[in-house]
């Protein structure tokens, strides 16, 4: 029964992503000035938004880990698994943003990359979380989890700066379409395609996140029983 449910869940995720793909590539109208290149927007923006979501999961889980690590070590381990999974999935989404951005920039701006505030802070955000994952690889044991949680707090400092970058400064990056007051507007079919893609990629990302948390919890219990066995063997 459980296996059937998991299978159904996977199938619906795939169906949702196929529907999102159809919406973005075939259903949404072609944009007037940019042409088909604009369709990358249905991937670039949802990934950016969801990247914030996963880095926020990492941030909240890291804070919970720091709060729980003394009194409730069992709960702290759960928080740590969520923090790790959030950072990993967030880095993947942020990478997609950084790859799709230049693919769009080349035909529209004529350049792959420019050092404006939005692009630079996005790259910094990506670099910080890659270094977070490296720290987790290099340091060992429970102290690594504390140190990683501390680094996650610093990474989270960059998030609001990145979000506000094209609102505070006049950047080459297009200004925000959503939550921008009167300036932003979007055609309804495009909005539908955009919404479906946000939903599809959110469900996909959260599925991967859940799987990753599950794997990490398994790893933690293996590590725990190995440590217990080593202690018993003494």
């Amino acid at each position, binding site marked *: 029964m459980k296996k059937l449910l998991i299978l159904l869940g996977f199938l619906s995720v795939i169906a949702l992503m196929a529907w999102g793909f159809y919406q973005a590539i075939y259903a949404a109208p072609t944009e007037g000035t940019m042409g088909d290149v604009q369709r990358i927007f249905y991937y670039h923006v949802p990934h950016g938004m969801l990247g914030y979501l996963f880095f926020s999961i990492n941030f909240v889980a890291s804070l919970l880990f*720091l709060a729980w690590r003394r009194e409730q070590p069992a709960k702290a381990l759960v928080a740590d698994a969520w923090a790790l999974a959030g950072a990993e999935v967030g880095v993947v989404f942020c990478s997609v943003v950084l790859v799709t951005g230049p693919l769009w920039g080349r035909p529209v701006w004529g350049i792959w990359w420019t050092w404006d505030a939005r692009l*630079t*802070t996005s790259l*910094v955000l990506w*670099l*910080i979380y*890659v*270094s977070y994952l*490296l*720290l987790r690889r*290099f*340091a*060992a044991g*429970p*102290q*690594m989890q*504390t*140190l990683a*949680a*501390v*680094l996650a*707090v*610093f990474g989270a*400092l*960059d998030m609001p*700066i990145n979000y506000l970058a094209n609102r505070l400064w006049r950047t080459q990056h297009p200004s925000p379409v959503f939550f921008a007051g009167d300036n932003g507007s979007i055609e309804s079919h495009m909005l539908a395609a955009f919404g479906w893609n946000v939903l599809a990629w959110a469900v996909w990302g959260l599925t991967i996140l859940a799987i990753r948390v599950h794997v990490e919890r398994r790893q933690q219990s293996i590590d725990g029983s190995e440590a217990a066995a080593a202690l018993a063997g003494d």
Partner: protein
Amino acid sequence: MLSHLGKDLRIEWRSREAINSMLFFALLVVVLFSMAFDPTRSTSREIAGGVLCVATLFASVSALNQAWAREIRHQVLDALRMTPADGAALFLGKVLANFLFVSIVQLVLGPIFFIFYNLHPLGDTWLLLAVVPLGTWALVSNGTFFAALSIRSRNRELLLPLILFPIFLPALLAMVDSVRTILTGDNSDPSFMWIKILAGYDILFTTVSLLLFDTVLEAE
């Protein structure tokens, strides 16, 4: 805090280990860059700020690792953890000591720099006295914090730059841009926006470091 600061200053005064190695290293970087780019007068104004910042950055990374490695050697750090003193005081003492060392290096390096690169600043040179210490503080405060963080890991010498550089990037950008504006005097930044960003960065990151330093120190 003052006793931590005094101790670090006394060790440095007797060994002169950090300052000498930093100074020579930064000098080498400056020479390397001047050979690699062969700068003319106008281009040197453009790149000098960046070269100075990057030279200081590389030089201080090695010294910052040493600063904590010294405490690890005879379990001094464990002893410090057992004292009733606040972790933030230890952190602040270390930052101040390192800030002094790096500033001395920059003071010595500055004139050499002007000679090698034939610098002739066109802007308001006195502003450098505000910009360079602010940038140095950003570097040293974050560097000290992340050196303490990475000192426990397996390959600590490698890890510090890997963590520090991404975190320091915004400050580096602000510092390089404000130094370039000062040297070229092009008035592209009339409201000192970069200097304000740099100051804001300093306040924000130093506060977070002070708040979290106890957690790093007690991590086990």
